[in-house]
């Protein structure tokens, strides 16, 4: 089963959380199905699911435990095989910026890519992109340090 990651699942933790929710939901559906077959009127409490998981269920029209299990398997497959990219910003990233960056990554790099965010105020601004062992540093700090001549000239002119 092929499933498209929603933009709300950003990081590997989000994916793991969604998988857990889906597994609980699948288990609950399975129990409810058995109870229905046995004629039991008393049902268990429906587990709370997040908007992200609800969107996945809705988009895949999964109404049975088996389908939910298929979704879980697909998500686990993505969890295993997907690549992850890390953005370090000068401050904790707001959701709007996260959404923009995730959308950009899934549009340009890979639709299954997972994104994680860190913050480090020492970089002053900009972004540091880390993918595996590769690092792309577009932080303000690096730009300041990289152009020392200009920096010195500016200091001298102060």
């Amino acid at each position: 089963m092929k499933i498209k990651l929603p933009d709300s699942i950003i990081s590997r933790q989000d994916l793991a959380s969604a998988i857990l929710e889906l597994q609980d939901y699948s288990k609950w559906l399975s129990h409810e199905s058995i109870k229905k077959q046995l004629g039991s009127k008393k049902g268990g409490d429906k587990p709370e699911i997040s908007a992200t998981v609800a969107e996945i269920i809705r988009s895949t029209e999964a109404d049975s435990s088996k389908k939910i299990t298929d979704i879980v398997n697909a998500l686990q497959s993505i969890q295993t095989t997907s690549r992850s990219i890390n953005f370090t910003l000068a401050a904790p990233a707001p959701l709007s910026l996260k959404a923009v960056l995730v959308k950009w990554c899934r549009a340009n790099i890979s639709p299954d890519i997972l994104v994680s965010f860190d913050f480090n105020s020492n970089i002053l601004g900009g972004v540091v992109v880390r993918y595996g062992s590769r690092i792309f540093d577009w932080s303000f700090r690096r730009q300041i340090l990289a152009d020392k001549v200009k920096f010195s000239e500016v200091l001298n002119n102060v």
Partner: protein
Amino acid sequence: MNIPNIANIPTIYLQIFVLINVFFIGVLTSIAVRHARAHFKNKKNPEPEKHQVESAHQNLNLSPAMKDKLLQASQAHFQIVLNRAAGELQRDLKATTIQLDKQLNRIGTQMITVEMKRYQTSLEELRKKTEAGIGGAQQEVADHQAEIQTKLDERRTELEAQLTEEIEAKKEQLSRQVDTKLSDAVASFLVETMGHEVDLGAQTSYITKMLDEHKDEIIKGVKGEN
């Protein structure tokens, strides 16, 4: 004392001298012969010796006074000749001694001169050898000094270059450190000033712009990482 050499005596005197010598030698020879005959006769018949002398005197028919006079004259003459001969012999000996002295002096002088020349030659050779040795040693010392000086110059140049390089490197390093410290100071100042109130919303366009600009680079890096 200046004694005339035999060779310098005039020839006439020599001739006279030789004749007188011959005369006296003849007289002495006759006397010697007579005495020898008388001697041998006395051995055969010793007693009649006195008779024979007397008979001989009688045979000469000379008076005893005359005979004594002749005998004395002969003795005196013989003494004179002997004295003269002794004097001549003494003069000859003196002349010979002088000649020998001169010859010895000359030979000695020649030997001394030759030996002195040899000695001077040896000294000169030794001096030349010594000078050559000293010159060679001086040249060797000069060469060695030049070699050491060259090595010292090379080493000094090398050390100066190395020192200059190290100074430049140290200067560059210090400059980098100063720049880094300044940058760190400014960065720290900015961090302290801004705190966590960095407006990332304002940076969104910058970040997406940077991502778009380096999209190929990122994709290439991602693919290379895989």
